[in-house]
Each structure stands twice: as structure tokens, then as C-alpha cells.
């Protein structure tokens, strides 16, 4: 991970938040925690977040509802559900709505969770890089087109390699 990632953890069980914090403490990332979905929303508004791990069954808004709600505004954030209850209905919904990257059951395996997060962040990183590059490319292309307008032919390389300025 080349730069510091921000991970948001949401769970109504504080002990789970603390355990996850310890899990990620060695990694070069910023960990933010929220004890319910509403708190999570506030954090999202204040800081850029790359990845969210959320419990599903929580008082107030459920994890899935939270994800569905935030999808339009934060389409790129990677979403992981970490739940103690294997509810088929919920899993189907999570996958069909396309807003969940992974579906992890409690109790979780530290190693697996870490790897999953790492892969997800790499993917996020690649995606992000890809996006940045595309953006850069577009910018350059715009400059070139501008130049071509001013000096037609300037962007085309002549066969003999000599630019002739008129």
C-alpha cells in the first residue's frame, strides 16, 4: 500500500470494534470507528474513506441499509459486511444490489480478514490509479487538441522528424 488508506469500522458491539482496531494496528492505515450507522454517515461526510467494514444487525439502520443508502454518493468505497448471522435473504440482497464486496461471518479469521482487506485495498488502489491515469490522459489530450487548433499539424509527427514552424 503506497499511501495511507482510511478504513471505517461500524459495529454496535464496542468489543468487536476494539478487536478489529488491534487487528489493523500494524498496518499503515487510518482506522475510524462508529457504533451505529448514523455515526458512520457523519464520519463519511467528514473524511475520505476507502473501505468500510460494517455489522448488519444494529439498532436503527442495518448495515445493508447503510450501504444501499451511501452507494450513490460514494460509489468507489469498498464495502464489507461482517455479521454473526448467516441470513440467506440478506446475503442475496447484498450481492444482487452489487454494493457489497465481501460477506464475512462472525467469528472471523484474523488472517483471512486482513488478506481480504489488503486485496480489496489493492483493488481499490488499482482502480483509483486507473481513474487518475485516465483523468491525466484526458487532460493531456485536451491540451494537445488545443495546441492542434492553434497550430494545425503540430501534433502530428512529420516523416523526416523536422517540425517546421510557419
Amino acid at each position, binding site marked *: 500500500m503506497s499511501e495511507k488508506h482510511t478504513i471505517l469500522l461500524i459495529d454496535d*458491539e464496542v*468489543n*468487536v470494534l*476494539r*478487536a*478489529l482496531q*488491534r*487487528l489493523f*494496528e*500494524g498496518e499503515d492505515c487510518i482506522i475510524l470507528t462508529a457504533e451505529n450507522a448514523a455515526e458512520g454517515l457523519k464520519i463519511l461526510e467528514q473524511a475520505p474513506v476507502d473501505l468500510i467494514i460494517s455489522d448488519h*444487525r*444494529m*439498532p436503527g439502520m*442495518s448495515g445493508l441499509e447503510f450501504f444501499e443508502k451511501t452507494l450513490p454518493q460514494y460509489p468507489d468505497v469498498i464495502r464489507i459486511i*461482517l*455479521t*454473526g*448471522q*448467516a*441470513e440467506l435473504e440478506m446475503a442475496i440482497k447484498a450481492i444482487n444490489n452489487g454494493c457489497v464486496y465481501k460477506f464475512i*461471518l*462472525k*467469528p*472471523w*479469521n*484474523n*488472517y483471512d480478514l486482513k488478506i481480504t482487506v489488503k486485496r480489496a485495498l489493492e483493488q481499490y488502489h488499482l482502480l483509483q490509479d486507473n481513474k487518475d491515469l485516465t483523468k491525466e490522459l484526458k487532460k493531456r489530450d485536451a491540451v494537445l487538441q488545443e495546441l492542434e487548433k492553434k497550430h494545425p499539424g503540430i501534433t502530428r509527427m512529420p516523416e523526416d522528424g523536422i517540425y517546421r514552424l510557419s
Partner: protein
Amino acid sequence: MNVLIVDDKEETLYLLETLLKNIECDVVSASNGVKALEKLRAGSFKLIVSDILMPEMDGFRLCMEVKKDNKLKDIPFVFYTATYTDEKDELIALKAGANKFIRKPVEPVEFTKIIQSVIREVKEGKIKGDRPVLEKEKEVFKLYNQRLVKKLEQKMLELKESEKKYHSLCENVNDWIFSTDQDGCITGVNSRVEMTGYSSGEIIGKRFTELLTPRSREVGINFFQRANKEAGTSDFFEVEMIKKDGKTLNVEISISSICKAKKFIGGFGIARNITKRRRDQERLRASLYSLAEAQRIAHLGNWEWNILKNELHFSDEAYRIFGLKAQEINGSYETFLNSVHPDDRETVKKAVNEALYENKPYNVDYRIVLPNGAERFIHAQAEVVFDQSGAPVRMFGTVQDITDLNKTQEALLDSATRLRNILDNAAESIITIDEQGIIKSFNLASERMFGYSMNEVAGKNVKMLMPEPYRSKHDSYLKRYLKDSESRTLNVVREVVGRRKNGTIFPLELYVSEVRLEKQLTFVGILIDITKRKLAEEQLRDSEARFRAIYESAPLGIVLSDSKGKILQANPVFRRMLGYSEDELQRMTFLDLTLAEDRQATLKNIVDLVDEKQDFFRLEKRYNLKDGSLMWADVIVSAVRDADGKFKYSFGIFKDITEKKRMETMLIQAEKMASIGQLAAGIAHEINNPIGFIDSNLNTLNRYGKKLTEYIHQVHDLLKTAVEDDDCDPEEFINEFNQLSQNIKLDHILENLKDAIAESLDGTARVKKIVSDLKDFSRTDKTEFESADINNVLEKTLSLVWNELKYKAEVVKEFGSLPQIECNPGRLTQVFVNLLVNAVQAIEQHGVIKIKTFQVRNSIKVQISDTGKGIPEDQLGKIFDAFFTTKEPGKGTGLGLSISYNIISEHRGIIAVESKKGVGTTFTVTLPLTKADEVVKLKVIVVDDDAMVRESLSKMVSQLYPFSSVAIAENGFDAGNLMNLYEPDLILLDITMPGISGLEMCKRIKDSTKHRKRKVVLITGRVNDDMQQQAYAAGADAFLRKPITAQELKQAIQKVMAGRL
């Protein structure tokens, strides 16, 4: 096979239900046609068995409705009836579409047979429900039916009325009713037995004829002799009875035979105290006599007047009347006139002249004035003597002072009025006739009784009040009587028949006496309408016979017991149920038979019954059978009271429901498992959460461990280098050391290490708790009650359902301080789980669930309310029904509330619901408070080879500590086995037994680590002084010598169980 039974009588339904269930039918019952139709439309039935006469909708109408309904018309329809027994009725029933017609009463066995054959025919298809009903006939039938129903409804009311009257015999009847066996020994009496001065207990078993005076006895003995010879004999006689205090009593007795299979099996008698009536009759006669006396009261004076000489002679009486002395009157017509009141002189003169010259009778009333000025009323009568020429010569006559007579007449009138009043106010009809049988008086009661008014009968012959053949015979009868006055019909009460104006004939009781008025013979007849009594007697006999049939053959135990629960009489079924003989039962009380756990409730109910706090009670309770097993019974006990409301005995009906209970227990367990399934997802979440972070923390701790190990090695190396290097710069060493610590973030690790361990421990505690709560809840059912705090039970329940609740509801707990109660916490948890899960399911979005506990006098209340959608009113009545559910298939068993209801009933509590649509629902569970600390529960084993001793000791223990359970063993070997299973607190151990002796046994107990704590009381029957020493040497906690009194046993138990009592 599903059978619908329809009858408005609860007891018939119960009987039918029991009978049908015995032949493996599923029975649904309805109390009338309307309800039956509802049930028919709600379920599917293979057979309908219906009574005809019912309120709301009768059987005929029900049958027609069923046959009209396309969906129902194929169900075979069977009538059974006690009222419509005519063949025409059967025809109508069959026309209405019925398939079978059974007449009541039939013996239960016979009835079962008929029903079985009907069911067989239904199964074989011989009976098909669908039968065409003719339209025209239907119309006719309708009319006929309506008329009949109206008539019968009225009749039913009357019947019910009189039945009620007869059932509450003791309250309404003033007569003493008794029954005897064939030898005349009294077997049963009503409360009016008090007229004899004996209590029912004293009189039962006495020979009836012994109660009669020697001169009356013959009549009684005669009856029983005749009755034994000829079935159906009945008699009516007046006798003298000897009361307990020796006084005699005039009693009229109507006695009839109770026959079984045409054989005389006993007498049934009604005795009426007629001492008072006798007195009244005497009084009436005296009154009539005084009337005659009054008529004789008169004082007459006579006089003679010689007209020619004008000489007037007075008798002494006449002088006295005129207030004169004999010499004071000059003896002339004129002097006489002078005495007459001036105002009346003309009248007198005129009357005299008319008598003398016009040949008119002299009959005149006038006033005279006495010398002292007083006025008197005089009545005078006279006759005139004429000479040959027709001229008056002499006049003689009487004077009567009617001043007093006037008063007497008033008195006479008074007396007559009084008599009239007596007659008219008398409840009995009183009719007087003369020698010819002509009616002279006819009081109001007679008018009411016969429907004639006084005017219609006055002067007519009394025979008009009699039906034939008595009517034609009466004249000759009367003549015969007058000729032979020794005739026996007088002064004897007879049962005769009368005829009303409307032609109806009715039974009467007649008492005739004669009175002589002015030499005129008058017969006074006193009549009592005994229609109702006759009817009642008949119904009583009928009801007796029906009861007998049920008593002998219904599959129900029937027991009469006294106020202490002592069994007076038990039917064969009850004896078979419990396995005891009649003799054994009669030595027992219900408490002896009841399982220790159920004794308190039984005792309380019996006490309340005796104290009139309740008229009946119903319990499901357990009995110890003779073979040592348990029986669950559904018991209904009602009190029979005397006219003053005093408890006489109780009447109990017992139904064996052991099998039902076993099924129920299985059902409860199954429902519990289902609710665990429902909770499983939530519980998984509750467990997986802590496991998740515990596991994660352990991994982190592992990482810390590695880091710390590495750090320690590094520090070790650093130290080693420092020690080996003489030129070590301390400052550099410290820097390096700090660097090492910083490298692994030592402070951070140490801080986190502490937290991670603390949090993980918290997590394991949570997992442990939920697993143990779940285990408590799901373990195979314990049926025993234990002492528990309901708040605690609720807390445990909450931890099980917490996950179901917390996301949808805010849970508000308002726990009051509660005493411990005797309950089954596992089962109560099941109830509370049900109520809480229902509450949260009723909440659609988010709401509040409130759990409130508080104590109200002698009970604990638990209220669970939600702010959910509420239960629709039409479903409110069904929510406790089994298999009623509003949840979608697969989500609920429909048994939750039904089983909750049963569980709460088992705790003798109540579960109630209140709900408002859109507002919420509140369930209130009320549990009675039993002070756990007042109840001493001991588990005792009695070991003795003598059955009598075993029995008496175990009985003593049960009486001393009613909540204890006592097991018995015949020898040491059995006792040893029993001890392992039963875990007693106390062993009462006989020393001298075959096999292992009590001393040896005691030693073994005290040497065993497992049983050492159990208390042993050694008992001996031997008179051997060193036995006590040996007993204590063997480790006994106490020692007793036979015979043992309850007091001694109590002291010994108190001594050894000091810590417990």
C-alpha cells in the same frame, strides 16, 4: 372420526364426550343448533349427534339447516331425545332428514353400542347423509314444529324449574325425604332429617320402623313386608314418630318402592310433620263449636196478658229484664206501655192491635226505659188466644233482652268473619259440606284450586269436584258413612283425585273431620294439591335411577366425601382407577391419596368449599395409586349443603387424564423446541459476536507474544553485550534500550494487552451465560416446582430473546420487589419467551415493550405490554386456542399461547389479555403466592418389614408435613436401591428386619460419602436397654421405641432436621 355432539345440558355433553372418546372419536360439542352450525361450517365432521329440545335453535331446525346446506347435507345426522319419544316424532325427524333416532334414557353401554353401530354403518356407507326432503312435508313440519317447540319450551321451563327445585331439594322441601334398603334400614336422608332430632350420620343405618311409636310401627312393618312380596307397592299413612329426645311427632308418610329389574331394592319416603296441621284442624273445629255456642246465648222472659181482666203477669226473668221487682208492676197493659220508650209506644200499640184484631203475628222490637233511666232493646213475640166469637181473650209471649244479644250478634258476626278470614287465608283448600254432601263453604284456596268461584258451587253437591267413578259413588258412600259412623275415612289423610272446572284431574290429599253445628252435622274437608309433589317424587325417582346408572357405569370416578376429605362412598370406577378396595378407601382421606405436591391446593379448595367461599372447584391433580404409580385426574368437586347452607358432603367427579397429561408434556416440550428454533438465529448472533472478537483478540495476543519474545531476546542480547563490554557507555545503552522498546511500541502493546484480555474475558462470560440460560430452558422437562424469583426468571428469558427484541423495541423494565414463589422456572421461561416474541412480532417498525412485575395481596403479576398493532377483537377469544395462529405458515406452531395458558393453569395462575387495535397489547400473568418458607418439603423413606408400621409411619409423616413425599421399603436391600434414586433427607429405619438389619444399614449409610448427610432415625420394637446405645454407636441421628406417637415422631424429626425446619 370427527363427531359433533349437540346438547344444551352440560352433563349430557360431558357424558357423551367421554363415551365417544372411549370409542376413539374426536368430539366437538355445541350447546345448541346455532352454535352447532357455526362449528359445522368451521370444521369437517363425519357425524352429528344431536338432542332435539334445545334453546335458540332446536334439533329439528338444526337438522333442516344442515340438510339445506350443500356442504353439510352429506353428514349423517343422529337424534337422541328424551322429550320427543313418540313414533310421530321419529317420523318427523326422519322426514327432516335424520338418519337415526335414539330415545333417551338408554344405558350408557347401550348408547355406546348404538353409536358404534351408527359409526360402523357410516363407515360402511350404509348411512348416507344425503336424503331427499320433501318440500310440502317440510312446510307442514315447520308449523308443527313451531307449535311443539313453543309448548315444549314452556314445558322445559317448568321442568327446569321443578328440577331445580328438586335438585336443591334440601333448600325447598319442608318434608323429610329418606331412602331405605329393602329391609327398611335408612340409607340416605335430606337435611330435613332435623325434624327427627337426629343428624344424618346418626340416622343412616337405623331401621325406619324403629323410629315409630309401637302403635304406629305395625303400619311401617306391613309396608316393607308387602313391598318385598310385590314390586311397586306404595303406601300413605299417618304415624307417630319418636324423636331423638323422646318426644313424639305426628307425621304423614308417603312411601314407595324403588325397584330394579322388578325387584324391590329399597323404599323411598317423604315424611311431613303434620303436628301443626293437626293443631290447626283442632282450632278450626273449636271455632266452629264456639259459633254454635254463641247461637245459644239468649235470655228469655215470658209473660201473659189477660185481656178481659187487663191483668199482666211477668215471669221472674221478665221482671229482671224490665228492671222491676215483682210488686212494682200493677199488672196492666198501660203500666207496661209506660215502661216502653215514648218513641216506640206507637209501634208497640200498633203491633198489639194488629195481633189482636188483624190476626197478624206479634213480633216486634222496641226499647224500654228502666227505672234507673237505662234503655234496653227488647224483642217480643206473642200469640193471641181468641174466644169462640173470635174476640181476643188472652195474649202470651216472650220478651227477650236483645241489648246483649245485639252485642252477641256482633260478636257472632265477628267470629264468623274471623272464621272466614281463617278459611280464606288458609293455604289449604277448606270445604264444608252438610250430611247430604251440599257445599256450605268454599274458601279462596278452594276457588284457586278448582277454578270454581264460591257462587258457582254454593248449594251444589260436592261430588261435582270429583271425577268419575268417584262422582257417582259419593252419595252412597256418604250414606254408608252416616249409617256406620265407625267408618275409617274420618281423621285420616287420604290421597284422592279432584276435578277442576276445566276438566283436568289432579291428585289431592284430603283430611275430613266432622263438626256438629246446631245438631247439624257438617263435614270439614281440608285439601292439598299434591300435583307438584307427585311430579317431584317421580322426577326424584327418575333422577335417582339415572344417577345410579351413571354412578355404576360411566367411565368416571364418583366419590362422596365429608368436610375433612374422608371418603364416604366411591363408585366402582373410582376404586378401579386407584386400585384400592372399598374398605381401604373408606379408611382414607383425599389427602392420603393426593401426591404431596398437590396437597396444599387440594386442602385449600376443600376448606373453601366447606366454608362456603366456593360452591365447587375444578382441579387437575395427581393421585398416588395403590401400585405406586401416579394418576393425573381432572376433578370437579361440588358441595352439597343443607337448607341452612351448612356443608353436608362433597360430590366429586374424577376423570383419568394421565394419558392426556403425558401428551401435553410432550407437546410442551415440542413447542419449546420450536421456539428454540425460532430463537436460534438471534442466539447465534449473540454467541458469534463475542466469539468473533475473542478469537480476534487471541490472534492479536499471539502476535504481541511473538513481539514481546523477540523484544526480550533483543534486550537480553543488549544486556549481554553491555556486560561483556567494559567500556560500555551507560547513556548509549539506555538510548539503545529505549530504541528497542520504541521499535516494538512496548507501551502500546502493554496497554492493549490488558484491554484485550479484559474484553475477551467479558466475551467468554457472555457466551457462558447465554449457553447456560439456553440449557436451563431446553433441558428435558422437570415437572417439580422449586422456589424461584420471578424477576430472575424474566432476566434469564430476556437474555435468550434479547437479540429478537433489541433492534425493534426499547425494553422498559419495571420490576417490583417480589417474594420467591413455588414454580417451575423452565416452564415459566417458556411462557415469557412466547409473550416477548409475540410482543416484538406485533411491532411493525419500532416500539416499546414494557415488562412490569408487582405484588398484589396474595399474588404476583407480570405484565408484558407492547406498542404493536394489537389483536383484532374477533380473534381475541381464539388466541389461547391450540393451532390458532396469525403468522404465516412455518413461522409459528399455533401452540405457543395455548401451551402458555396450560403452563400458567398448572401454576394455578391466570393469563389474561387486553388489546386495542393500533395501540398495543398487554398480557397479564397472575401467579398465586405460596410462601415457600412456610412449606416444609421433606423426602422421607420409611423402612420396616411390617406393612402396618410402614403405613402408619408414612401416614404420620404426611400429616405432620403435608408437603413431604414419603417412599416405603420393606427391607434394607430395597431401601438401599431406593436411596440412590430418591435421595431422601430422612430415613426412618426399623432395626429388626430380615436380611440387612437396621443397625447394619445405618452404619453403611453413615460410612458412605454419598449418603452420609442423610438423617437416620432408628426404630425398635424390642425392649432391650442397650439397643439405644447400639443405635447411636451405629451413627443414628435419633432413636425411637415403638409404639411411636405422632408427637414423638415430630420431636425426633425436628431434632434431626433442625437445620431445615
